[in-house]
């Protein structure tokens, strides 16, 4: 354990302190910090990578690109979407286009240390790939948008880089492709064309591509900027008449040209979320203005 990252975390905790409104900023990729509030930044830097454990530890301020490059030297990668910092990606909690095959970003977090509203460094989870010791603070923190604590350093579960990986297109029915292909990494659909990402042994990819008449292509389509979250069964009802979209089949994320409709949150869940925010940040000093949605 490098004392460098630990010292950085301690200094970060001092910076967050225990009084007054404070917000956290990274590279500003996912919305950035709250305007007009004192801004702090989590420590950057990779502490260690253990390829045989498929784990790594880094500061939450480490750019995702830096982690990707360092892991690639060991033939590994991590299911965190590209861009910004590791802390930002986890705090927002949106997964990348490979979620169907690689799982959601929330499952990558094994251990977290965060700075609480009191300025304490708090640990949740553990360093091993399997662990049920205590309540699952990691899942609580992923997607909490810095409203319960500021991520300081994390241990992530890594994965082997695919032996081979290729994008294809098809004019076939996306649900038939989802049903027939063996564990595709991604199936995207814009209402007309289906994009498929396959990974694994090159022979297996070629065999599946031939079997389902897939045509090689360079990559996924351009994604509209707004993000919807729908039950995967609702994607069949999407229509291009409503504007261009790219839907993640089997997952339920839809990249759409217009913002998602407002939702009616369950008052019981709203109340529970408020109690959580109250328990973790009674003064409402962390990322003020970002509500404990829904």
């Amino acid at each position, binding site marked *: 354990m490098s004392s460098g990252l630990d010292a950085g975390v301690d200094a970060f905790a001092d910076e967050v302190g225990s009084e007054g409104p404070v917000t956290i900023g990274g590279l500003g990729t996912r919305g950035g910090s709250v305007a007009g509030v004192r801004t702090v930044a989590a420590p950057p830097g990779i502490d260690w990578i253990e390829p045989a454990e498929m784990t790594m530890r880094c500061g939450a301020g480490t750019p995702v690109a830096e982690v990707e490059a360092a892991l690639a030297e060991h033939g590994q990668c991590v299911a965190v979407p590209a861009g910004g910092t590791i802390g930002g990606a986890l705090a927002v*909690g949106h997964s990348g286009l490979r979620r169907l095959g690689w799982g959601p970003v929330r499952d990558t977090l094994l251990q977290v240390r965060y700075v609480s509203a009191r300025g304490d460094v708090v640990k949740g989870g553990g360093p*091993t790939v399997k662990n049920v010791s205590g309540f699952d603070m990691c899942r609580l923190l992923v997607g909490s948008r810095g409203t319960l604590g500021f991520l300081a350093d994390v241990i992530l579960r890594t994965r082997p880089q695919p032996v081979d990986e290729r994008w294809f297109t098809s004019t076939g029915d996306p649900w038939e492709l989802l049903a027939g292909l063996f564990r595709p990494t991604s199936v995207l659909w814009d209402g007309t064309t289906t994009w498929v990402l396959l990974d694994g042994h090159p022979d297996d990819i070629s065999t599946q591509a031939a079997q389902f008449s897939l045509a090689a292509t360079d990559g996924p389509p351009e994604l509209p900027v707004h993000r919807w*979250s729908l*039950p995967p069964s609702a994607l069949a009802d999407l229509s291009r008449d409503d504007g261009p979209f790219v839907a993640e089949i089997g997952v339920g*994320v839809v990249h759409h040209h217009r913002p998602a409709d407002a939702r009616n949150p369950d008052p*019981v869940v709203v109340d*529970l979320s408020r*109690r959580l925010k109250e328990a973790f940040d009674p003064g409402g000093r962390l990322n003020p203005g970002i509500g404990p949605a829904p």
Partner: protein
Amino acid sequence: MTGRATTPLVERLRSCLRADQVRDGAAETHLYRHDASSMQGHPAVVCFAESTRDVQAVVKVANEFGVPFVARGSGTGLAGGAVPIPGSIVISTTKMNRIVSVDAVNRLAWVEPGVLNLDLSTQIAHLGVHFAPDPSSQQTCSIGGNVANNSGGPHCLADGVTSAHVHAVEVVLPDGSLCVLGGEEPEPDGYDLRGVFVGSEGMFGVATKVCVKLLQNPPHVATMLLDFADVADGAQLVSDIIAAGIVPAAVEMMDQLCLRAVEEFIHAGLPVDRAAALLVEVVGLPATVAAQVDRIRELATACNVGDVRVAADDAERALLWKGRKSAFGAIARIKPNYYLHDTVVPRRELPGVLASVYEIAARHDLLVLNVFHAGDGNLHPLLVYDAREPGVIDRVHAAGREIVSVSVAAGGVLSGEHGIGLEKRDLMPLMFSEVDLAAQADLRRAFDPERLSNPDKVLPSPATCADVHSVPEGAWV
């Protein structure tokens, strides 16, 4: 106890549920004193819920009377998580056992919590899908219990534990209100309360319906049995396989004592004269499986492997897995009682920690067998003993504590899949500081301010609360 006066609590419960769903007879309350651990409590009454409405009614009565409650599935938990504290209400969910709906296209299903783990996979097998978590108790453990404990199993190495296979949970919160945490949709707004609920050991409310993820069955499977003259060589191969970029579906290890016990039981031709064997399973499309089998053979040769046996057909594969999964039954032939431990260490620490486990057992004059999920470093040392032997229980507990301490000191964790429950509650400070534990207590308080939902588990109790509830017998306190 016949002729005993019915308590106001029981009377009130009977006004909400049918009389036959509310049992307070001595025989029934006695039966529900414990789970599969060695600890015992004593419930005031056992309620057999048949619906979400039933669960909600019981929880509301519990709130009215200020009486704690604990939800219980099949009672296969090993950490005392379902042990009722004295005077509490047990809510049995075994009769809530319907598979509500299956969406084979999008691969998800809504099930009630009492559905048995293996029953779910068996009943949806014709759709070419399964529920991935497969604890060794999968024939008898319930999905609700899997959710409470965030259960694992051999095949969680590649696919992840229960949390990764739960989209949503319908929950009766500890105050009796009903909500759905998470959803079929991938990114529900707000906090990941679904993720927080999974593994909360019944302390955040009662799951009444679960939306689980289903996985495609693999088209090809190769199951390999590899044996070694030295346990350390087998452990090294585990690390080497992962470092080579292969994540098998499962990597299980059995040591010699375990191999011998199992072989006597099932006659599978196991290598009983070898120090250890690894059961490795790789799955997927044919070229992937073939390439991985070849690579594992190469790596194994470099680790001084003896025989490499690849199951020739489904029957042989089933036999090898039967050996692994019946280990606990086989062990009864050696001694009548066993204490099964559950810790996780980094894979690289497996050889050293295993050596310590053998040393600790020898020092306490106990027999230890090891059969465990080597792929994710999840140790399951089994201390076998005869409870009739005077003083043996103390030695078993002392050895157990040392095994847990050695695992944590090696960079590991208290539990990989059994949970903390009562068993390891007071060992939590080995891993967590006071500040860490206070945050977990805050989380618990947000869900259950009145501390009625399965109290006194997981978090070490502050001294001031020690008199509130008496500690069940057999707890390590």
